């Protein structure tokens, strides 16, 4: 039963995922934590952190959440559900792309999506860094990391490692 709910939810989310997984993180957290109570907010944040340290597409956070909610079967169901509906669309649309490429609509949609994704990425940063009540230590780590990414050319793996060290010291 829980597998079906998980599968249906991630399949729906698949169609709302534009520009990577970041923009849908707040929605995922809302459903998994607030609506279903499958994990605590702190736990969700830690699962997200664990997924970030793995190589590969960041959608793998869905398998971690699936694993936490329903074991190995949950991890497979969550990942496939998030990927397959979108994959079906990609399959269907790739043939039409040649025609669509020159269409003015392509530009209209791209421009329409940009501010949405920016707003949702800010929301993702805020949601992840604020699992419970606002905590200045988490916000400090987030802001230092953001500054690091904007001002240096370090690989983000090092920035995450820096955050982990700061976490070990501050928390």
């Amino acid at each position, binding site marked *: 039963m829980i597998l079906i709910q998980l599968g249906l939810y991630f399949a729906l989310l698949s169609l709302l995922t534009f520009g990577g997984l970041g923009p849908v993180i707040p929605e995922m957290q809302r459903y998994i934590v607030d609506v279903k109570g499958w994990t605590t907010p702190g736990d969700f944040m830690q699962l997200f952190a*664990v997924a970030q340290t793995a190589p590969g597409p960041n959608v793998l956070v869905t398998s971690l959440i699936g694993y936490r909610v329903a074991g190995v079967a949950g991890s497979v169901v969550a990942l496939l559900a998030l990927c397959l509906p979108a994959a079906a669309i990609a399959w269907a649309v790739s043939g039409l792309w040649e025609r669509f490429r020159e269409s003015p609509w392509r530009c209209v949609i791209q421009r329409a999506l940009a501010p949405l994704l920016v707003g949702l990425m800010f929301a993702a940063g805020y949601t992840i860094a604020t699992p419970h009540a606002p905590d200045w230590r988490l916000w400090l780590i987030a802001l230092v990391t953001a500054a690091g990414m904007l001002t240096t050319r370090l690989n983000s793996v090092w920035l995450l490692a820096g955050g982990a060290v*700061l976490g070990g010291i501050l928390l």
Partner: protein
Amino acid sequence: MTGDALNRFDSIAPTPPRTLWELFLGFLSIGARSFGGVLPAAHSIMVEKRRWLTPADFTEVCALCQILPGPNIGNAAIVLGKRWFGIRGAIVGFLGLFALPYLWVLTLAVLYTHWVARPLVSAVVTGAGAAGAGLFIATAMKLGRPIADKPAAVALIAGCFVLVAVARVSLVIVMPIALTVGILFSSRGKL
């Protein structure tokens, strides 16, 4: 003759994978190597190393996958696998891409479940999570800078943030509304 020679000089013709196995191995190494972002690994494998695609082709596939829903690189595996081998290629590319990262994440999940009770582990992982939040914020600032001078864009950014992060409205409601408003603005040249 001359045109041929010129072409060869300007850009080396791409050599798409000849077998499903080659396709699988290529996507396997993209999945395995993409620490901190899939796109650089995808570019280095598909364009520079294996020369499956020309740089222009690569940009084109990325552009398509960015306006489709779903994980971009997953979509790229589907689109390219289909282009070269049909449905078998789409499936093999997808499986190759996710095989190693999936096993890695599952291993981490088991380790994490085992160790999380220790306060130091918990603190370190939470710190990495906060850093991940910082990466989102930095990415949002990078992507937002070019459109920050347009009032309609700023209104949409703020609206999405407040509805999703503060009011906690479901994205199932916010996304269609925001996309409609965005398309209205954008088709009138305000974005």
